[in-house]
């Protein structure tokens, strides 16, 4: 079957029940989305499908319609997205394993709400677990990214 991932068409030959995460990682070699739980409980595997954050570890590829964007598709020609740059500026990541998922969820949040409140951030981000406890810096980075986007608008 054919998927559109990070602006490229890819052909996947697999059981339609295979979760999108494993098709991306093991078959397509797109390693940005991470495996954390397999039950949509941690958010490390988050990708965007038509702009909405989706837990790819529980989504069968047979059911995928729309354009998939992973963490690998956010930067353009080596220039980080506003959200990625905010993560860099706030020095958010520690082990970094959950951060691809965190950044995808934050990207979707800021696409939907240009200036999110703390409660908006709680609602959008509580599905993304971080065992290193980077939450305070994630919150700061989301606010920084929002400010940057608003200043550019």
């Amino acid at each position: 079957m054919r998927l559109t991932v990070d602006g490229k068409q890819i052909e996947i030959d697999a059981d339609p029940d295979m979760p999108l995460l494993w098709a991306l990682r093991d078959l397509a070699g797109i390693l940005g989305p991470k495996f954390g739980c397999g039950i949509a409980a941690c958010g490390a595997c988050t990708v965007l499908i038509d702009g909405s954050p989706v837990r790819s570890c529980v989504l069968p590829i047979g059911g995928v319609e729309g354009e998939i964007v992973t963490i690998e598709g956010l930067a353009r020609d080596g220039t980080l997205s506003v959200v990625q740059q905010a993560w860099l500026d706030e020095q958010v990541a520690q082990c970094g394993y959950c951060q691809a998922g965190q950044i995808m969820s934050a990207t979707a949040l800021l696409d939907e709400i240009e200036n999110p409140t703390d409660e908006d951030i709680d609602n959008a981000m509580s599905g993304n677990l971080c065992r290193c406890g980077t939450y305070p810096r994630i919150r700061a980075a989301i606010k920084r990214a929002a400010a940057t986007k608003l200043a550019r608008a």
Partner: protein
Amino acid sequence: MASIGKITRRAFLIGATAITGGIAVGYYLYRRPYPNPLEDELAEGEATFNPYVKIAGDGAITVIAPRAEMGQGISTTLAALVAEELDVPLEAVTVEHGPASYAYYNSEMLAEGGPFPFWDESIMAETVRGAMGGVGKVLGLQGTGGSSSTRDGFDRMRQAGAAARQMLVAAAATSLGVAARDLATGDGRITHAASGRSVGYGDVAAAAAELDPPSEVVLKQRADWRILGKSQNRVDMRDKVTGAPIFGVDVVQPDMLFGTVRMSPRFWQKATRADLSKAQAMPGVVKVVPIDTTYGSGFGVIADNTWAAFRAAEAIEVEWGTAGYPADSAGMTARLKEALASPGGNSARDEGDVDTAFADAPGERLVEAEYEVPFLAHMCMEPMTATARLRDGVLDVWSPNQFPTMTRQLCADVAGIETDKVNVHTTSLGGGFGRRGEMDFSMYATALAREAGGRPVKVTWTREEDTRHDTYRPAAAGRFRARLGSDGSPEAVEMRIASPSVVAGILRRTFPSISPMGPDKSIVDGACNQPYTIPHYRVTGIEADLGVPVGFWRAVGNSFNGFFHECFMDEIAERGGTDPVELRRRLMKDYPAALAVVDKVATMSDWGSPLADGTAKGFAFTLSFGSWVGEVVQVSQSDAGLRIDKVWIAADVGTALDPGILEAQLVSGAIYGLSAAMGQEITFADGMVEQSNFHDHDAMRMHQCPAFEVAILENFHKMGGAGEIGTPPALPALANAVFALTGKRIRTLPLSKEVSFA
């Protein structure tokens, strides 16, 4: 004497002299006894000066930071130590973990393993520290743990940079025909000011590497630091915001297969009956193979992709042997209580005359309590994983691990080859917390590689397998009593703590033929070595084997003893009618570093000022891994449950090399502890762990995360650790805040058994 305090013990022992412009220390020791592993793997035109520095002809500088990067920022700080002395910007160096090598031994990890508290600088205590550190060196133990990497690397990495710089300058002097003393370094160039001529590091690297290393090197004075002491951008941050393939799960090798494991859920047991046919016949499955190691027994699946391997592992029909230990949590608790009630144990601190002090204690002056904490899983975000290839008698293991030399040795045993035929490639770790100091995931990958016909196999555990086959933070129980004086201060305190031994657990699964020597300090660590002066003060550890594999978990013994000690101090304060912070000020008056931390965090949190209704604060202090840490937690009641509003942390780490990374570590450690205190426990039924994934062993989420305010102090003259120190006081500070708010003294964790959090 102050200047001697600044010079480390090791430098002191081999003879140090303070000279103008820096501190000269003997350098020769650092080249012995192990050869430089980089000499075998230099690229064309590359030169190496010591096990930590390589410079190419084009001036490209590579620093080896041979400690596991698990989020604590150690690759950045170790590289900063080298860059500072090499006189180059941190951005100018590429940082690699490097190979497994005895040259990268950690001599600090074991140094505090002796029976002396951190502040004890008697000759005996220092001698034992030196000897314990020497064990790490003799064993060539390359490891990351015990919050030791910065303390271990502080001298060694700076000396590596300084020695390389001196050699480069010497070579430049020859090349330019001038005296070395007339040359200056900066930004990777060596300049002769008088003539304006200069050469790049790359121009003279090859010639410099041929020179004899200097017999002594001159280190910069702190006032001259340009990188150290300031917050740096982490060297791996860009990779981590772009999803770069840096973790164990991201390893890709040509012709690679995928796999997973299904190990006996009852520890130390094997399959009594197994039918592999269904699993074997599933699409994408290459082979189902038995695994039998000192860690455990079960099966591995080799497949075309990870998902196929997961499904086949689930399809294995198997019955396992019955547990040879208490089959459920109630039975384990009973065994802990039995151990507590039995006489004996090892008194790790025994001052005054405790027995006499309690013999005639009037009831109204007596405080007694029993506490208990559960087993805990690490729950690293990256489930256990490793990739292995056994081809032509050579084993390559790509592994996110904390102990490369041990990994090399135990994987060699599994493969049936000599250790010099094993290459360990250490990737970034998606969380470690002590779990990745184990060798099981690397050994299992090796076991599958043996059956893969020379092809590499990437073995990833399911989250369920990870949760149920951890090396758990030990459960523990304690009995505490205090006799209060007329002013409410404790005249006598006795603590008895029973817990499984982490050291015995590790030996059982790594080197089963070796018996542990002496009592395990981890049972009492965080209770027996706290900076309190109490006339009669005894802390006794009692080892109680529960049959469950236990291991290092962020702060280990401190993570439960901090809870025990500091909640009991809160009980003493309350019964004696003393403010909890005031009680600490009285009892810690002999320890100025502790006192300063207490005062700082009290000031920051405005301790003692009136609070809004439905709001309360709790305080706790723990000295662990050489750092003095006080925390105040504020909780409030909301309609949805208890909320943690804010946490204030003051920490004295002696020398703060990177304030930004330290702040991140303190917050991280506190959140790790708060997560455990709020809701985590590993329980048992039928000999098996009952929890399996984040739905039943969760951690703090964004909406539960408090605001933080952190102060870093540098009063104490010895450097402390960073990675674990935020954890121990977080649990008791929260429990004490919950008591202040609700009046419930919760002595058994997690707190969620008695209160609910929003």
